């Protein structure tokens, strides 16, 4: 196993886990967080320089690999933050190794499933269909910029192959339905947990927030205007919510 980790900022440590459709490895929301935290953002195994996905069979293997990564980064414990698949893995890590998480922020996480409320097939949807479920407004500037691939043939092909690899590497742990037992393990999470959800999230409907809140002992739900890609649609608000949740109020009892 070999992880590639992007790091930046100052302040207490924070682990950020990406999801399927993060083309920008250091998006504005991480820049905002870096003003308050030392952000560690690893690439998932099999994505852009992180290696060894072929040695991992399931989410437990992957969560334990993250446990080892925290050890290698000399972080005994840290707040764990992740979006969608990254949220699912943050929750798995916090459930399997509760002592690693001082706080948990899950932005529209995967990991639960209801047959009558299916999530969008985020690993396989073609670009146009994907844009419709990822964004509150697929025509917004951030959505359009995200959807634009390089124009030159060589760069375009490279970008498409990178995308297939990225989806394949993460898709391995959620195929064909992203419920791999988190519901059975979620009661083990001891960290205070914030569930951040876009009210207009059509990819992973907000009804799942209640399911997570019921399964994780110390969870609160915060809904905000936005879609599934809330962290890219509203980076200021998301960074602010995360910072507020993870930073005890002066003189307050904390959570």
């Amino acid at each position, binding site marked *: 196993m070999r992880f590639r980790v992007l790091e930046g900022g100052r302040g207490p440590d924070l682990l950020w886990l990406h999801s399927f459709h993060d083309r920008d490895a250091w998006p504005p929301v991480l820049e905002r967080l870096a003003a308050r935290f030392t952000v560690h953002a690893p690439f998932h195994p099999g994505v852009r320089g992180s290696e060894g*996905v072929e040695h991992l*069979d399931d989410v437990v293997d992957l969560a334990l690999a993250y446990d080892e990564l925290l050890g290698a980064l000399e972080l005994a414990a840290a707040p764990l933050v992740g979006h969608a698949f990254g949220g699912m893995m943050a929750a798995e890590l916090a459930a399997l190794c509760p002592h690693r998480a001082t706080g948990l922020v899950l932005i529209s996480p995967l990991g639960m499933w209801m047959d009558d409320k299916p999530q969008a*097939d985020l*690993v*396989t*949807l*073609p670009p146009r*269909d994907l844009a419709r479920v990822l964004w509150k407004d697929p025509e917004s500037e951030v959505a359009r910029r995200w959807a634009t691939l390089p124009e030159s043939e060589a760069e375009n092909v490279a970008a498409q*192959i990178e*995308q*297939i*690899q*990225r*989806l*394949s*590497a993460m*898709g*391995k742990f959620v*195929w*064909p*339905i992203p419920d791999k037992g988190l519901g059975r393990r979620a009661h083990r999470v001891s960290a205070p947990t914030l569930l951040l959800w876009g009210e207009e999230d059509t990819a992973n409907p907000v009804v799942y927030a209640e399911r997570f809140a019921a399964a994780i002992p110390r969870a609160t739900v915060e809904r905000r205007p936005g879609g599934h890609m809330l962290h890219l649609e509203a980076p200021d608000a998301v960074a602010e919510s995360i910072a507020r949740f993870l930073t005890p109020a002066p003189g307050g009892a904390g959570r």
Partner: protein
Amino acid sequence: MKICYFHLMPYRFLPGNFENDFRSVWVDVPDSLQDRGKVAGLYHEFLDELEHAERMGFDGLCVNEHHQNAYGLMPSPNLMAAALSRRTSRAALVVLGNSLALYNPPVRVAEEFAMLDLLSNGRLVAGFPVGTSMDTNFAYGVNPATLRERYHEAHDLVMQAWTRPDMFSFNGKYTQLRYVNLWPRPLQRPHPPVWIPGGGSLETWEWTAQRDYVYCYLSYYGYKRGKATMDGFWQTIETLGADDNPFRAGFLQLVCVSETDAQAERDYFEHVHYFYQRCLHVWEGFAEAPGYRTLKTLQAGVRPQVGDLGRKIRQSLDWRKYVDEGYVIAGSPATVREQLTDCIRTLRVGHLMVLLQIGSMPRELAMKNTELFGKEVLPHLRDLWPGYEDRWWPQGAVDPAANGPGAAATAAKAGPAPVAGPRGTAR
């Protein structure tokens, strides 16, 4: 030269507006489009056509496996082969095949193929496809990231189950069996010949060649476009230092024979068009799950035959393009003979598979195509590749080359023989 009759068993009654009004022929094709009474009739129609092909002198009858689709109504090709085993007596039963990664435990495949080999008196060819992404990843939910590893492990288990003399344990990553002890075992020893159908993945060439199996390229886009793939296979054979026996290779070609070239267009165009426009109408989102292709194959530029790219190729097709670009070899017997000879020589294939019931083609027309091919084309291809031994032909099927010229024709005239003991007992 061996010529096999391939049947896809397509649903013939998709509505005229299908490709515009519905998203996909595979995975989520709506139930409202299937007339169950018609499907019941189709099975008998298609089996009649396959049985007719044996009477017309074809060496093998090919069936294959697909799921949740109107392109081919055969979730279980083994059932079709079982039906054929009782009503044919001479032709090889080429099951192309069972997608190994879909069976749990995979010894089920070893068992059913053993039964088919016994039922048919040793006429079985065992085909092991990886399976399309639509079938394996979407319809059957197999993880694309581990599909090929699972397939390879299942293959090893099946081959051991057929060949190891005593009961054994198998501690695989995907299958753990404490007791493997196949009853019954195949009639052919050490096992039925193995053919591997491929869609152009690079690593399949090497894997197939190393195990001395037959590589079959199943392309919808004809022999002109198939050349690059077959060249890649033969290049791999050369690199590995194996001989260039053409019977190492198989190729599927769509063929339409009529009285004249002009009559072929009148007879067959709408059915060929139905095949390309409706049977291959697979939604882009189901064409290829991320991880289905290896990085190596992606980097070599291999893309799926269906989905967005396939649609772009197919959209502009008229009869001239179907024929000129070699998607379909069509015309008078003389035209078809000439082009097929070119196809066989160019690709260096010893096992030609022809698709003669195409798309919406009704029974009478499929019978006509089969009969004209059998009488006017097939005998002229028979003597290609003299001097090469077909080591990949089932021991119980008639081998026209081994029995001297005309053996197949004699057997065909005699009609279906009563079920006899195993023939070709060289084992």
